[in-house]
């Protein structure tokens, strides 16, 4: 049995840490062993079966399906190296952080720190996400290092802080300091943003899919005069493909699909730091 379905028994009184409860790890165990797996609940250890009703199902690749209000469940998909995690319900903090491969999909919202230091794979959040998406663990120099993060709803502050590779797409509005200290990679915003977007942006691309919703570029950004027509065509077609695959039926898919036909206005910054970053406003 490659797949396991975990149904939350009742609302959790404290935070539950599901670090280590990964599809590949469970696929290697029999059901009784899975039920005994110790997980940290507050300051105590509980057997996994005390929190979840667990059943196995057939699946092609290791898969984990969680059902219930998991908004107090943290570190789900932490360090995921393959397989699939599907959640029906909201989840807590650090969803998919440090994952390297595989897919995580949440049919609900996620807490703070989703996709922190993620290095590969795909993370889909169909609801909203909290603060510090795709940023760093405390003190680290690099946030998201690779992979794809799609957030269908809104996201909080410090989105993509110190991110250095990969693609991050948010359908709705985002909070303050979006793409702050961005080192590299692509951030696509379907809505508007709070204060100080692009603060300390060193390199990387920040694309405003609705230029009218975008704030005025900071004073440390300047209009870019370079010819980017070829780059834009390659980039826009790629993004249109991502839209069709991951956002079918949503407004953002249309915005992405329209990109190749548009011409972006381009700004360079943040000149207060490296100044090698760009804002693209396709009109």
């Amino acid at each position, binding site marked *: 049995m490659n797949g396991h379905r975990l149904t939350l028994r009742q609302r959790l009184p404290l935070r539950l840490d599901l*670090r280590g409860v990964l599809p590949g790890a469970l696929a290697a165990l029999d059901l009784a062993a899975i039920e005994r797996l110790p997980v940290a609940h507050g300051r105590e250890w509980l057997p996994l079966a005390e929190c979840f009703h667990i059943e196995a199902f057939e699946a092609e690749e290791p898969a984990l399906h969680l059902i219930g209000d998991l908004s107090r469940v943290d570190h789900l998909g*932490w*360090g995921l190296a393959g397989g699939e995690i599907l959640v029906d319900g909201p989840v807590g903090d650090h969803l998919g*952080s*440090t994952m390297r491969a595989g897919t995580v999909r949440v049919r609900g919202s996620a807490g703070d720190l989703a996709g922190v230091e993620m290095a590969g794979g795909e993370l889909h959040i169909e609801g909203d996400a909290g603060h510090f998406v795709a940023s760093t*663990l*405390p*003190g*680290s*120099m690099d946030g998201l290092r690779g992979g794809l993060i799609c957030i269908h709803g809104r996201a909080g502050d410090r989105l993509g802080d110190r991110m250095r590779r990969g693609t991050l797409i948010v359908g709705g509005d985002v909070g303050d300091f979006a793409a702050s200290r961005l080192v590299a990679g692509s951030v696509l915003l379907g809505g508007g943003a709070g204060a100080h977007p692009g603060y300390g942006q060193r390199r990387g691309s920040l694309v405003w899919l609705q230029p009218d919703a975008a704030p005025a570029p900071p004073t440390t950004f300047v209009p870019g005069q370079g010819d980017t027509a070829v780059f834009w065509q390659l980039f826009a077609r790629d993004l249109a493909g991502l839209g069709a695959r991951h956002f079918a039926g949503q407004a953002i898919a249309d915005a992405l699909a329209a990109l190749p036909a548009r011409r972006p206005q381009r700004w360079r910054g943040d000149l207060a730091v490296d100044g090698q970053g760009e804002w693209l406003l396709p009109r």
Partner: protein
Amino acid sequence: MTWTLLRGGWLHDPTNGIDGEVRDLAIQGGRIVPLPAEPPAEVIDASGCIVMAGGIDLHSHIGGGKVNLARMLLPEDHRDRMTGGANPCTPGDNPLELISCGHATPGTLATGYRYVQMGYTAAFEPAMLAANARQAHMEMGDTPILDHGAYVLLGNDEYFLQRLAEGAPPEEIRDLIGWTLHASKAMGIKVVNPAGISAFKYHQRRLDVDESHVHWGVTPRQVVQALARGLTDLGVPHPLHIHGSNLGVAGNIASTLATIDALEGLPAHLTHVQFHAYGREGPKKFSSAALQLVEAVNARPQLSIDVGQILFGQTVTASGDTMRQHANAGLASPRKWIGADIECEAGCGVVPFRYQEKSYVNALQWAIGLEIFLSVRNPWQVVLTTDHPNGAPFTSYPHLIRLLMDRPFREEQLARLHPDVAANSALKDLKRELTLQEIAVMTRAAPAKLLGLSDRGHLGPGAAADIAVYRDDPIDRERMFTTPEWVFKDGRVVARAGRITATPVGGTHFVTPRFDDARDTGFAAALRERMARNGSLHPQHLEIGHDELCACCRGGRLLPTECFEGAST
């Protein structure tokens, strides 16, 4: 009163002239005693083992502001490498060990456990700021098992420089030193880049020994002289602890020798000299001046040194030397650093660094340190340090000991380095292999002597029963020194075969100099007035009393050291 017999080990006790003789030791009431007549309550069989006093690290950054800044700068150093490098550290299987981790910047708890596990029973923080003394004592008090003490910084604080510039009489400087030691409960005085940290704040980016501070007009030479003189007059056992000018700069051997010259024959301890023994020869204009330095040390029995050996890998450099750390900040790896002034008393620079075998400069630094160890004639003048964590974390001492004791091992390492280093280094011709007795001198007997600790660092009757018992392993000295069979602290077994078995609170060493602070008219009044105007510390809180020290150090024992008799006050 019951006693414990430690039977049949090979004793290495250089202080008492015992070099690898099979001797029994009697432990009673936390002390080593002459063998009592009645039978022992407990017998520990140490046959086949090397028995030494507990190790004493006389220069290791384990407490105070910059150590905490280093910890905060490198949270990744506190994650668990065993589980992929991202998870927090996990509890071990020993319930006596509270959770603590860190490699280059271990937490206070891990610092205590790791030192004790390798047979060390005391360590001294070399760069405590007077304004930060409480914090430093609290951190060290939080470090379990290990005894500790600190050297307080002077020579860059504005008041000292001002009075020196104004021509204060030597007695006033002496009393200012005495009061600073007393107020901060320190074991000695360290001067860091004499006058240079202050000069940095006046836009000077280097300060040679005979160059004037642009504002105060004093030179490093004057600073060193005044401090060394004052300490000698006070009779403080540990002589001036000098971190010289131009740390890490090619050609700095000139300022190191000039600093020695400035001492005019007064005793001093030159610290982390590896970083101060560079020439400007060769294709890279960076060469070893180890032999010049050693020649100066060999000719002056009143000098002692510790090496500050570098070893390869990730660490962090944490120093009061803002001027030099500012210059090194571009080399930070990972690329982040902290520079700060603290209360206009001294500075603070924290720069993470990775020493690399393939780097010519790093490989040469490695060779220079070993050259110094292997060419100083009298081991009593050299203390084994890596300037933790600046050259390497203290946990690499067993590896360093093997490098010093095992020539083939050393040459194997040398062959892996940047090829130009092996070709140009004197190291390849140094055949010396240090003996167990010499290691015992450099790691316990000499540091105890240099600090004036008459009942530590040796195994004679009356000494504290701080003892490390290593299973002899002539093939792999690294393994031997990594995991002693038994470690005793004040007569109690605190580690057994690498496992912590008890966690008593360590004691605090400090000196008790006699001085005159002319409370209402002299510098004490001036300092209080200055502190009230500019400082963040209430003037009434400048002095740490005995009760408060005891509280800072979690009730650990207070271990005052008397100053030499006949000191002029």
